């Protein structure tokens, strides 16, 4: 005698109306999730302006009061009214040396404009002699600041060079690059920022 086991009765299929509602709600959920992702990503892109991350973005720039290698005092707050490009540099750093001709081109082009940006270089962990010799050999007559104790570096959160920042005429940070820049790239960013207004 063999026991015949009846297979369990299959669950009855949900009525078509209920199935349709489930599909509709699932599709709506996916659509809303996609829309949220699109909005978040598009805003992150437009808000970042291709700048590197920094909590100082759109905030007042840290104080920069140092002495140039020529022995002149420099105070960033005295430069309000002009766009200022701050470059963090070291003569021992190959990407910085490679970037220098681009900064020269940029500075020369900006000097010919009425509202051209001012360039300033900040040096840490380098000797005054090395820096002076470098600028004599490679050119560049903009202010070069010595930051021997790294006060300016820490206040901007800079740990590696080269870095380039753009400060607007109101003294607010508008851009940070943590890689080498080119004259064309820097000019494009600056023009875009000028279009957005200070």
């Amino acid at each position, binding site marked *: 005698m063999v026991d015949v086991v009846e297979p369990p009765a299959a669950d009855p299929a949900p009525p078509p109306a209920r199935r349709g509602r489930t599909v509709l709600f699932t599709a709506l959920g996916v659509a809303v999730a996609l829309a949220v992702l699109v909005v978040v990503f598009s805003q992150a892109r437009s808000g970042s302006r291709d700048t590197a991350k*920094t*909590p100082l973005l759109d905030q007042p720039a840290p104080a920069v009061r140092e002495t140039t290698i020529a022995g002149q005092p420099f105070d960033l707050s005295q430069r309000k009214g002009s766009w200022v490009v701050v470059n963090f540099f070291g003569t021992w750093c190959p990407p910085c040396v490679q970037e220098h001709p681009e900064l020269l081109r940029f500075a020369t082009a900006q000097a010919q404009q009425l509202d051209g940006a001012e360039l300033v270089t900040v040096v840490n962990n380098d000797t005054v002699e090395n820096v002076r010799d470098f600028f004599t050999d490679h050119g560049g007559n903009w202010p070069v600041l010595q930051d021997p*104790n*790294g*006060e300016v570096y*820490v206040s901007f959160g800079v*740990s590696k060079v080269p870095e380039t920042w753009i400060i607007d005429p109101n003294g607010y940070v508008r851009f940070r690059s943590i890689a080498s820049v080119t004259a064309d790239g820097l000019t494009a960013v600056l023009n875009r920022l000028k279009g957005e207004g200070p």
Partner: protein
Amino acid sequence: MSVLKRWPGWLLMAVVLAAFLTIGATRAGGARSNAERVDAIAKTIKCPICRSESVYDSKAQASQNIRDEIARQVATGRTDGEIRSYINDRFQDQGLLLVPPKTGIDSLVWVLPVVVVVLAAGGLAVAFRRWRVAPAGGVSEDDRSLVEAYRRGHDDH
């Protein structure tokens, strides 16, 4: 009665534990020199360009800059928390704090483990107590009513 006798011991242990925890969490560590404070803060901040090294241990220039900044701020009278917060803020994109702050949402990192331990200890205490109160093999009310119903059934015959 024996439970009551054990209570003072448990109570004493709880008071001693609470006292040690309070002292450990709030002690100022006595007067410290500025150099000791600089070192202590530097040990809690990660070198921004190294792996698993504090700015205290690291020889990198970026770490030296941060140590100098800590020393400057200690000299101006800022608190340890303010200095750590400043450094963390400036290097926010890199997350330099090796020890989470004890304020705000970050304080949960400190509070939650204590809460979990206390809850777990409480849960264990309740579980042990239940095991003692209801030993295995005891007669439950359900058992008694079952037997009673069986007896009544037999008495009827």
